[in-house]
């Protein structure tokens, strides 16, 4: 939205003049969270930035993540460059990828590795897959114990004999398959190990494993099936499915640098190479919002939709609270624990406290939720047991009741805006039609009609900010003056959003064109109010007026 229109609006709107105490906040527009403008901010002091990049290198990252830097070559030449914007936090340099992009990069790496290994590409893919696409770990092991590694992964048959039996499909008469136990004339598949099974059994077997992302082996032993074998059995390019599921598990294992776009059916993955500045964001109560190629904006830290003015902690607490109140999820809370690493809910269905997260493969102790490794040989010695029972019973029932009422009020507000946002979304579907009719009926160019889509985007952002502001309000000290200012700001944004929403209901194309300045004004106002509310909320967080209480 063009900010140049603000002046025009300032003289028009009475409300703004009345609320003198907001004007300071209003001027302070948060550009840090507006990543869409990233490209337009030109670096001013390149020397300083270079130093900065050196100082805040990824020293804190784990080794495998350092490895990632090498593995995935960024196409953006200035990717390492950092900028300090007005908000005081470094701009995030990220890119939006799909599983296909990542897979192609993996293939590039495999091609690079080929001269080192002097193995067929197919074999290197298996090796990389086994090591979660981590080249460094693979090379380390490779120089150490090459033959053991090949046997372990199933590239060499245990007897060390590679060429006794031929790999592939053959037609056999009166063959008895050891899996389905049928005797028939059928195509039979076998690897070097010589275990022969009918192709139908192999198909069923592979079908069930393509989505696991793990290496698929012979049905009778540990010799690995290569992609070409899978394609031979399952049909052309079937192995891609396995590769993509392997990439998926790669993404969830490297969730510090890679995040799926949380929007339904969106296939985008955001890759943030250098995560060192994220702590700076949380320290200043900003949230690192990113935008995927489908224009969905979400928070890179918590993977949730854009939630300003609330920060990630407030958002998390709010969502958990909302869930806790829901009867359905009581069971989940009492019977599951979150994986300490990737936050997937895990139900314990066996006796052993050695848990392995099925999503990110993190190994941890059920009792203390700490890493498993130090527990190793001293099973059940975990002394870190924390009794959480009774934690929620501390407050008396009366107090709980009061709290419940307060929560219900804020939740209803939150929910109302969520519902409205959904309705706005539906409204958005008609905007496209409107733009089209503008073009057809009054000959407005496509670019000229874009103000409608922009207004809608602004409306959505305002709505979302408003929604999350109720989470902030819930955790804020109601007696503090700043909280009162915050509530005033909520009211102002609320009004602005409703006005803009009303404007967007207009259907007559000519009237829309005539009121184009109104669209600019109202949308500009919504944006200003949104920014003001966000900044005010951040102020509450920074000053500790809004904080989580146990």
């Amino acid at each position: 939205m063009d900010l140049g229109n603000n002046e025009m609006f300032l003289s028009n709107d009475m409300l703004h003049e009345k609320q003198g105490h907001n004007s300071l906040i209003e001027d302070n527009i948060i550009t840090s969270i507006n990543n869409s403008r990233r490209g337009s901010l030109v670096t001013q002091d390149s020397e300083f930035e270079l130093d900065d990049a050196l100082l805040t290198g990824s020293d804190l990252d784990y080794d495998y993540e350092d490895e990632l830097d090498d593995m995935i070559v960024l196409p953006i030449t200035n990717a390492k460059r950092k900028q300090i914007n007005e908000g005081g936090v470094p701009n995030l340099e990220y890119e939006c990828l799909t599983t296909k992009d990542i897979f192609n990069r993996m293939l590039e790496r495999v091609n690079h590795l080929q001269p080192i290994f002097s193995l067929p590409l197919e074999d290197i893919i298996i090796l990389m897959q086994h090591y979660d696409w981590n080249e460094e770990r693979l090379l380390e092991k490779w120089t150490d114990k090459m033959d053991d590694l090949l046997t372990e992964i199933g590239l060499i048959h245990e007897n060390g004999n590679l060429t006794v039996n031929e790999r592939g499909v053959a037609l056999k008469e009166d063959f008895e398959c050891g899996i389905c136990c049928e005797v028939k004339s059928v195509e039979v598949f076998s690897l070097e190990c010589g275990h022969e099974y009918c192709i139908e059994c192999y198909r069923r077997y592979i079908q069930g494993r393509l989505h696991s992302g793990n290496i698929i082996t012979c049905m009778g032993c540990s010799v690995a099936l290569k992609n070409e074998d899978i394609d031979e059995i399952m049909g052309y390019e079937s192995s891609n499915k396995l590769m993509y599921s392997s990439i998926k598990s790669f993404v969830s294992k490297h969730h510090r640098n890679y995040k799926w776009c949380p929007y339904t059916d969106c296939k985008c993955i955001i890759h943030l190479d250098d995560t060192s500045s994220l702590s700076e964001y949380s320290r200043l109560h900003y949230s690192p919002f990113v935008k995927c190629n489908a224009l969905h904006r979400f928070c890179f830290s918590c993977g949730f939709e854009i939630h300003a003015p609330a920060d990630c902690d407030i958002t998390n607490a709010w969502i958990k609270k909302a869930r806790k109140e829901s009867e359905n999820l009581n069971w989940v809370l009492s019977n599951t624990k979150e994986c300490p690493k990737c936050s997937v809910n895990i139900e314990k269905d066996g006796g052993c406290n050695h848990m392995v997260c099925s999503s990110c493969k993190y190994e941890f102790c059920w009792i203390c939720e700490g890493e498993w490794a130090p527990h190793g040989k001293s099973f059940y010695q975990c002394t870190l047991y924390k009794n959480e029972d009774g934690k929620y019973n501390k407050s008396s029932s009366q107090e709980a009741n009061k709290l419940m009422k307060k929560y219900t009020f804020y939740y209803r507000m939150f929910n109302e805006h969520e519902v409205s946002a959904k309705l706005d979304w539906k409204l958005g579907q008609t905007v496209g039609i409107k733009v089209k009719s503008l073009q057809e009926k009054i000959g407005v160019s496509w670019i000229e009609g874009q103000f409608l889509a922009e207004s809608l985007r602004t409306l959505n952002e305002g709505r979302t900010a408003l929604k999350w502001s109720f989470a902030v309000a819930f955790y804020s000290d109601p007696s503090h003056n700043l909280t009162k200012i915050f509530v005033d700001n909520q009211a102002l944004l609320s009004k602005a959003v409703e006005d803009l929403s009303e404007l967007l209901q207009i259907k007559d194309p000519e009237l829309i064109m005539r009121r184009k300045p109104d669209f600019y004004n109202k949308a500009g106002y919504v944006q200003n109010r949104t920014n003001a509310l966000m900044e005010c909320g951040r102020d509450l967080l920074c000053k500790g007026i809004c904080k989580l209480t146990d």
Partner: protein
Amino acid sequence: MSSLCLQRLQEERKKWRKDHPFGFFAKPTKKQDGSLNLQRWEAGIPGKEGTLWHEGVYPLTIEYPDEYPSKPPKVKLPAGFYHPNVYPSGTICLSILNEDQDWRPAITLKQICLGIQDLLDSPNPNSPAQEPAWRAFSKNKAEYEKKIALQAKQYSK
């Protein structure tokens, strides 16, 4: 039940009746109407000669899921069975019975039974499944052996 699962289980039964290791038994259970339930078996595993386990024959239940043989059967000893790799519920922790580890569709009932017989006398201290037996096994061998001998008597023929 899928036809593949059923077909394979019938074959497993045929093979077992033709040839099975000495001292072992395995048979499908019966449904209420008296017909065979091929997805649920009962079996007995004798302890190996020359070990503390040899006196006993240890009862197993084997449950085959519909996805068998893509997925492994679930094999259980009686609840509370004393062994470092047996969960309190009786479920056995063995790599060939784990889909994500060493289960292969070609593994037969005979291999499973022999695998469990092996496990009895050579537990794997690195994947403990219950506390008492694991603790005794790694810290107090004398007590462990006493308990094993006692358990063998309890399950003797």
